[in-house]
């Protein structure tokens, strides 16, 4: 029975294979010939494409150099007009690039000269015309060029182009209006922000709005009242880059926005407006249920340098979220400075993790280095303060970096003083570590001697070692 099954299976497989083979061989031949031709063609195409690109690039660079030479110095409108009219499309693109590059040169005078020449030669007008071109790429290009020239004559056309059906054009218009930094560009941008297309990031729109809204924050405030979450985020974000008192009332109202992202941006916006109301608004946000809103609120408090924020920041040091605690520590640094009173207060009244967060955050700004620097000062009060603070810190176990400073601090005098403090206030473990330092190769002889001097066991051990070696 199995034999029969095997025979049938083999025969059917053979027949199947033979039939398939006949058909597939023909197909294969055709496929291979086709693929071979395609591959060969593609290889040649890629090579010639690169060759062509390379040559075009060289030719373009040469042309660019020639055109740059022709309009170098101060181009007058007639020369530019003649050049523009004579130029073909490719040359016009190159010429536009050269002119735009020159618009970007530092110095108003140069830009004004180029602007005048562009206007006089009718080039600017042709670019404004191009904003209504049927070709999308021309519209994008024109919008970008107009932004670089930064001439207010193109404003109205750009504002109109903010309603262009192509999102690429709208993006280019957003950037150009942002470059122009003119409040008259706001209607176009506000229209875009009211119904923001997905391809334009919130951030870009917010930055463009902020660039144009200097002194006209009232136009942005309307965005905070729109139903769309993105619009409100964009509005708050833009306001965070514009310090304007007129927006204060609406910003305070927005601290109760249902969207946490909006509240976070509002905290930032309020930090730019120094007023008691702003402080109160931000303080309210430091108790927000969403952690990243609290985080931004503490950052905002720090930026505002609000004295009333000190107590809130101290409270923030016991926050459940580690990142919020760190930010609160940063806020304390900005509000009160890295003072010994704060360190002592935190150490005495807050849990250990608050103290760790405080020191950790302050250390990134060079806290211990600054404290140790106080040991070299001639101001007696500061010296005493530094010394006492160091004693407190050493007693609290902050020793790792201080040990390192004993080895690397630029002034030997400070190193030795620090060493003495470590030896006096430190635990047996610190003393043992100092002893180990003394035996380290390459250590400064004065530091090693001081260690042996201030730690009795060290000198005893050293003398014992000396005796041992002399024997």
């Amino acid at each position, binding site marked *: 029975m*199995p034999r029969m099954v*095997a*025979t049938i*299976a*083999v025969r059917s*497989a053979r027949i199947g294979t033979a039939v398939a*083979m006949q058909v597939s*061989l023909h197909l*294969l031949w055709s*496929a*291979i010939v086709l*693929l*071979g031709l*395609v*591959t060969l063609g*593609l*290889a040649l195409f*890629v*090579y010639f*494409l*690169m060759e062509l*690109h*390379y040559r075009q*690039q060289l030719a373009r660079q040469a042309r660019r150099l020639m055109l740059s030479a022709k309009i170098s110095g101060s181009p007058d409108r007639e020369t530019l007009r003649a050049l523009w009219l004579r130029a073909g499309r490719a040359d016009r693109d190159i010429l536009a690039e050269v002119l735009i590059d020159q618009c*970007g040169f530092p110095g108003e005078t140069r830009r004004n000269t180029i602007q005048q020449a562009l206007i006089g030669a009718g080039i600017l007008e042709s670019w404004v015309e191009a904003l209504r071109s049927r070709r999308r*790429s021309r519209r*994008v290009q024109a919008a*970008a060029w107009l932004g670089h020239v930064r001439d207010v004559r193109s404003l109205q056309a750009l504002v109109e182009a903010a309603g262009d059906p192509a999102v*690429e054009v709208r*993006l*280019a218009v*957003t*950037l*150009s209006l*942002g*470059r122009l930094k003119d409040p008259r560009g706001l209607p176009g941008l506000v229209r875009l922000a009211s119904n923001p297309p*997905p*391809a334009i*990031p919130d*951030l*870009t729109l917010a*930055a*463009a709005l902020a*660039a144009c809204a200097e002194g006209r924050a009232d136009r942005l405030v309307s965005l905070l009242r729109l139903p769309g979450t993105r619009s409100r985020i964009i509005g708050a974000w833009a306001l*965070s*880059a514009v310090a304007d008192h007129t927006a204060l009332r609406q910003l305070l109202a927005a601290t109760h926005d249902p969207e946490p992202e909006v509240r976070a941006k509002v905290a930032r916006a309020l930090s730019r407006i120094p007023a008691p109301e702003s402080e109160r608004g931000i303080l309210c946000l430091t108790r927000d249920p969403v952690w990243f809103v609290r985080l931004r609120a503490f950052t905002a408090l720090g930026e505002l340098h609000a004295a009333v924020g000190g107590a809130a920041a101290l409270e923030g040091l016991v926050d459940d979220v*580690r*990142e919020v605690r760190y930010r609160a520590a940063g806020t304390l640094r900005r509000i009160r400075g890295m003072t010994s009173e704060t360190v002592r207060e935190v150490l005495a009244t807050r849990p250990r993790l608050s103290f760790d*967060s405080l*020191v950790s955050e302050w*250390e*990134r700004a*060079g806290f*211990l*280095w600054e404290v140790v620097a106080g040991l070299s000062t001639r101001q007696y009060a500061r010296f005493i303060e530094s010394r006492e603070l160091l004693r407190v810190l050493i007693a609290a176990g*902050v020793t*790792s*970096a201080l040990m*390192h*400073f004993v080895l690397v601090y630029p002034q030997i005098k400070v190193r030795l003083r620090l060493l003495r403090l470590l030896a006096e206030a430190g635990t047996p473990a610190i003393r043992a570590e100092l002893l180990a330092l003394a035996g380290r190769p390459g250590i400064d002889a004065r530091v090693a001697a001081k260690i042996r001097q201030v730690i009795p066991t060290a000198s005893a051990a050293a003398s014992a070692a000396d005796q041992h070696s002399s024997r």
Partner: protein
Amino acid sequence: MTADWLKVVLLVLQVLVFGYFISLNALYFVLLCFSVLWCRRYKKKVVAHPIDFEALEPLKVLVPPVTLVVPAYNEERVIVQSVHSLLGVSYARVEIVVVNDGSTDGTLGELTRSFSLRKAEVLPSSVLPTRPVRDFYVSTVEPRLVVVDKENGGKADALNAGINFCKTPYFLAMDADSLLEPEALTYALRAVLEDRERVVAVGGIVRGVNGSVVDGGRVRRPNLQFNFWVLMQVIEYLRSFLAGRAGWSQINGLLIVPGAFGLFQKAACLAVGGYSTETVTEDLELVVRLHRYARGRKLGWRAVFAPDAVCWTEMPTRARVLGRQRKRWQEGLWQTLVKHRAMLFRPRYGVVGMLAVPHQVLHELGGPFVEFGGLLLLPLFYFLGILNWTAFVLYLALAFFVGVLFSLMSVLIDQTHFPRHRFPHDALLLLAFSLVEYFGYRQVFLYWRLVATWNYFFGRIAWRVSSRTGFRTQAR
């Protein structure tokens, strides 16, 4: 009787091998089509760059800050130049965390000398488990740079330590021997900012710096090094990134974000527990875990590819070093896919569960068996007298042309959309080596993958360190 059964089995195997060939190339073809369309659209879309610091000044304060996490193990030859390259990126708000992963050479010393490091008492801001951190250093000359010195624990462990000390909402994981193009980070961030709610990982494109002229941490003149292994890798990378990952990104099935350039949302990484130290391809594993976590909870997270975010890296120039790297990748693939086998063919995980993971299992893990099986079957077919030479040669030619076609298409996409090598002789080299790949390189590659598979099953997996030669700073 036995011979008959053997023939049946062989014929079935033949059909299976052919099925594998068809399914693999069909998938590649579909991905290639997606890639071509996507790259065209992408190129059209980015005529104006939304994060243009020069155009929009407020962006300088509004953009989210990003931390560049650079794990370094025995990188004394390149670390200073790498950090200089990172400091030169055009992105406005950057912090750099270099993690010295227990280097036994002068990596820390080089950094200390070049950036005047001093120790600081700083605790981590998150708590991913890592090997003990010895010290934390801040630079007195460059406020954006901090260095974490820890005991050796591998790249994943070093990255976790870096994330712990990162204070920003996004971080970029990269290699110490990599150089970023100045705009790379901005381009990667654009992908995030276009869809802030969903994009949690962005992978850039990795290119070989070998042979290029590097100055001040920047690639001034990209060139191709005339080295067999390097050129093979250049073609492989182009194919993998531009014909593969671009397509996977399009259908939200991207599983690989390169270790040399991967931008991640910190909160998402912390939510899944950071990098896994149990696998040797921590980058792949992290992305698979992010997909698994997000799709299991219907969060809609996405990993995307940014083709113009370029990271230049030193490619292995010797077969031995390249072999080590490739074995590690294959071993890591085994580890990752076995760990996440529950995702296989599970509709709950969407494209990842139904297409991306099955592709990795069938084609990447199964590939060596099929290819090796094919090589074994050939003499058997011959001795049993069922080898049709015409068919065999034709299939071979078909496989060759299909492979070359994919390589050429990748070169074409690269040259037309994101060109870096602009000299025609570079094109000639790439074209020539696209043809050579199937004669020798594929077979060596197969050997490495088989060894890696053996290593996986018989427990000989370990991180293998590559030697560095440093960047070339003088013109050819």
